[in-house]
């Protein structure tokens, strides 16, 4: 594959699946600095993955696989910026979209963020309508394991929604 071909595919993916990447970044990164850091890391990994892409999987599955693996590794890699004070000093590369103000979705993301790093991936894939089989392929765990995790995640989200009663939930 030539570099121009790689570039074209990368542009096309970024254009079509930007929302997917943003969802993962938001689910895994606590603050603006971390979101920038993770976003950059995911883009780099996707760029590198382009020549390895074979048509046997859909682009969405492929991108989820690369991005979630990157996010999971990134989460365990180092101490992240958990101090809110650092946010004021460095302007963020990713800025929250002004139109995005729905409290219920914000609440849902917060709940996803409370899950462990593997369950976060499962929750994202579940909400995006992936089958157990596809999730198993993306995450490299068995379908039965996926089933167990999904049950647990669903129970937790439902319980939290009943407990909270705020944010319009």
């Amino acid at each position, binding site marked *: 594959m030539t570099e121009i071909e790689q*570039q074209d595919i*990368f*542009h096309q993916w*970024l*254009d079509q699946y*930007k*929302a997917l990447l*943003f*969802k993962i*970044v*938001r689910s895994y990164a606590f603050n603006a600095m971390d*979101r*920038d850091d993770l976003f*950059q890391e995911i*883009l*780099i990994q996707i*760029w*590198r993955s382009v020549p390895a892409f074979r048509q046997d999987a859909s682009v969405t599955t492929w991108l989820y696989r690369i991005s979630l693996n990157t996010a999971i590794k990134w989460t365990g890699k180092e101490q992240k910026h958990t101090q809110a004070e650092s946010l004021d000093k*460095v*302007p*963020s*590369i*990713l*800025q*929250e*979209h002004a*139109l*995005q103000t*729905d409290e*219920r*979705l914000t609440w*849902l993301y917060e709940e996803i963020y409370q899950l462990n790093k593997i369950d976060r991936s499962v929750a994202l894939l579940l*909400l*995006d309508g992936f089958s157990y089989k596809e999730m198993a392929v993306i995450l490299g765990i068995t379908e039965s394991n996926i089933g167990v995790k999904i049950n647990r995640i*669903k129970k937790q*989200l*439902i319980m939290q*929604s*009943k407990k909270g009663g705020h944010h319009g*939930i």
Partner: protein
Amino acid sequence: MEFEDLQKIWDSQSNQYLYTINETAMYNYIASKKKKTFLIANTSELFLIAVNLFTGTALVFMSISNWKLMFFPILTAAWMYITATYVLIHRIGRRKSDRLFDKSIFGNLTHAISTATYQVRLSMLMRWNIIPIAILSCWGVWNKKHSVWITGLILLVFVIAYFASNWEHGIHQKRKRDLEALQDTLQK
């Protein structure tokens, strides 16, 4: 609320763009990457020049200390002076080319990639440069009728240096690839 309701919330909004990309922050991010790349290039150039000049001069002094010129140390010293001169000339060229790049985000990034490319080439040349120096050194030691163990030990040091240099070269290549990926993201 049931899970189906949560799913509806997700479906209705999760495909909207949650973020936009802040150009100024992107500029600062790239500027810091550029600074880091220049610092690495600068340090490695100065280090190479200093090491080659110092070792070359030391070899010259050792060879003429008893008023008898020794062929291999002098040849090795000459090679090291040539290496130092090569690095110096390319450093001057690199510094001159700094003016060719504008201060836009793209210009900064192109500049950083240019410096990273230079660094990759330099580290590759320095890796290959270990081979003639190793040959000259081992040959010189062997010629002075030192034991095979000493020659072997010197050779081992050069082999380790070669692999260390290879590892360093890999780091520079990775940095260059990361910058290129960033440039591609920016062009979109």
